[in-house]
């Protein structure tokens, strides 16, 4: 990717991010309730009209919408996401406390998913339309039809209640606690990704160069490892970036089930407590992470594919 393309893409991302911040900020105004009232209530105070008016003024809610947004955005740029209504701590601090657990969970499930999906997808493609392919396809089919929270609860009831192997409430520490939530999250993702790996490898296997290599008498295994897989990796990286989105969304559900002390758990609690700054911060932060990852994927894609490198110069 040339420097110009890179900067263009970066600029585009910043613009989209501005829009994203606007949507995240507007979320608060979707709510039928009054934020000032919500804040007072979560603090356990009685909302008298005078107190309400004072709180509204303090939060800047009496100002026009765009002025509020501008002030909020200005603070966000300085890393200040506001103060959480329920915990009275800065949102940014709270999120940084909970983020490592989510990151750990996401990465662990990503690794698990790759360990399952890549071999399964390759096997399905190589044995195209024979029994291993049918078996793997049926399994992935089942995988995409199962709600992940149900899988989580079934695993929990089996391992924690029947076998007493893990505790029901996880602390977010240690590998034992990590295993079940990560497995749950990896479950549905592996099904989707196996299909994508299969399609990508199948596409490469149908290319002329594979036929050529076969004619030259190279063994299938050599062709697969040396030529097909490196080529199939490219589209798979892009898809991986996109799957991260569903992974990040899935964490909320899984974290709740396993009482995992992560961002998703924090966000759902914030929603039920009408803790608006927290919700805004969560949406903004997750979108930022997601966009940066996809941006990195875009850039690496251009870097990894020599054909694209040639074009942009």
């Amino acid at each position: 990717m040339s420097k110009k393309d890179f900067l263009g893409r970066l600029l585009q991302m910043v613009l989209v991010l501005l829009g994203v911040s606007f949507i995240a900020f507007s979320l608060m105004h979707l709510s039928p309730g009054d934020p000032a009232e919500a804040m007072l209530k979560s603090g356990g105070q009685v909302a008298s009209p005078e107190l309400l008016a004072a709180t509204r003024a303090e939060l800047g809610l009496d100002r026009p919408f765009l002025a509020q947004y501008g002030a909020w955005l200005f603070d966000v740029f300085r890393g200040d996401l506001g103060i959480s209504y329920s915990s009275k701590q800065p949102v940014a601090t709270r999120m940084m406390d909970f983020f490592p657990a989510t990151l750990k969970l996401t990465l662990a499930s990503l690794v698990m998913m790759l360990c399952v999906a890549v071999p399964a997808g390759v096997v399905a493609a190589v044995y195209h339309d024979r029994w291993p392919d049918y078996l793997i396809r049926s399994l992935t089919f089942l995988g995409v039809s199962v709600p992940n929270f149900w899988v989580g609860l079934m695993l929990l009831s089996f391992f924690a209640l029947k076998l007493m192997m893990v505790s029901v409430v996880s602390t977010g520490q240690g590998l034992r606690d990590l295993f079940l939530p990560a497995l749950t999250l990896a479950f549905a993702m592996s099904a989707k990704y196996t299909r994508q790996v299969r399609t990508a490898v199948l596409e490469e296997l149908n290319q002329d160069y594979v036929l050529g290599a076969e004619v030259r008498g190279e063994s299938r295994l050599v062709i697969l490892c040396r030529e097909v897989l490196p080529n199939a990796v490219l589209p798979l990286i892009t898809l991986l970036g996109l799957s991260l989105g569903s992974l990040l969304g899935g964490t909320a559900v899984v974290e709740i089930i396993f009482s995992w002390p992560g961002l998703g758990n924090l966000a759902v609690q914030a929603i039920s407590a009408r803790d608006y700054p927290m919700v805004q911060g969560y949406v903004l932060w997750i979108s930022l992470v997601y966009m940066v990852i996809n941006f990195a994927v875009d850039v690496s894609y251009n870097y990894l594919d020599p054909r694209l490198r040639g074009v942009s110069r």
Partner: protein
Amino acid sequence: MRARFAVFAAMCVMVISVALLSPAIAPKGAFDATMRDSLKAPCAEYPLGADKMGRDLLSRIIYGTRASLSMSFAVVISVSIIGTFLGLISGYFGGFIDGVIMRFSDMMIAFPGMVLAIAIAGMLGSSATNAVIAVTAVTWPKYTRLSRSLVLKAKTSLYIQGARLSGATSGRVVFGYILPVIFPTILITAVTDIGSMMLELAALSFLGLGARAPSPEWGLMMNEARPYLARAPWLMVYPGVAVIMVVAVFNLFGDSLRDMLDPRHSG
């Protein structure tokens, strides 16, 4: 291929008739509580057991088909209409309006879908309608992009140019000539999406951000079953099995529809 399609179509019809005829099929009412039978294990009177209020789980699952189907159909229909309409305008007219619509959909796509859906549903307050709105709000850009790209392709065809030259109005070209051509692809996408929409809606209800108690909705029923996971596991198992079965039926139906209408995709 047609036989496969017919089988899955018949299964879909069965699921839909279960939803429509639930009062006739269900052995008991969805709200008939008998506190004496609270958390009763599966037995002759309660084939799948009873919940904490002593309501028959089987009946509630049968009634739950209604909520699940109506919510997912509502989402799929509204995203196809909104998304396709915006995509048609965007692709056909291009220029400024195209830019506005596409940038807006870029923004919506920049969010991981479920995260935004959780936030929207949470902010609007929990109800089945709000869950539908939330999932719709994060899903339409997919249809807009799809239909826009299809319009751009169709626009260059000779028959469209012919229609324009013979003086057809923009509205007539878009709805009379372009829409029928892109419709099958949109339909396939919509049908294959029913299953995943169902899962997303169930997840929202499970988080307490969708259907509200006491309505029989599968995600909500599983949410209510959580505290009794050890004492009454059937409350968790069967609604989940119901979701899996119905989602699988619609996924199979969608796949077979795609294979039939678009043979390139098969295999």
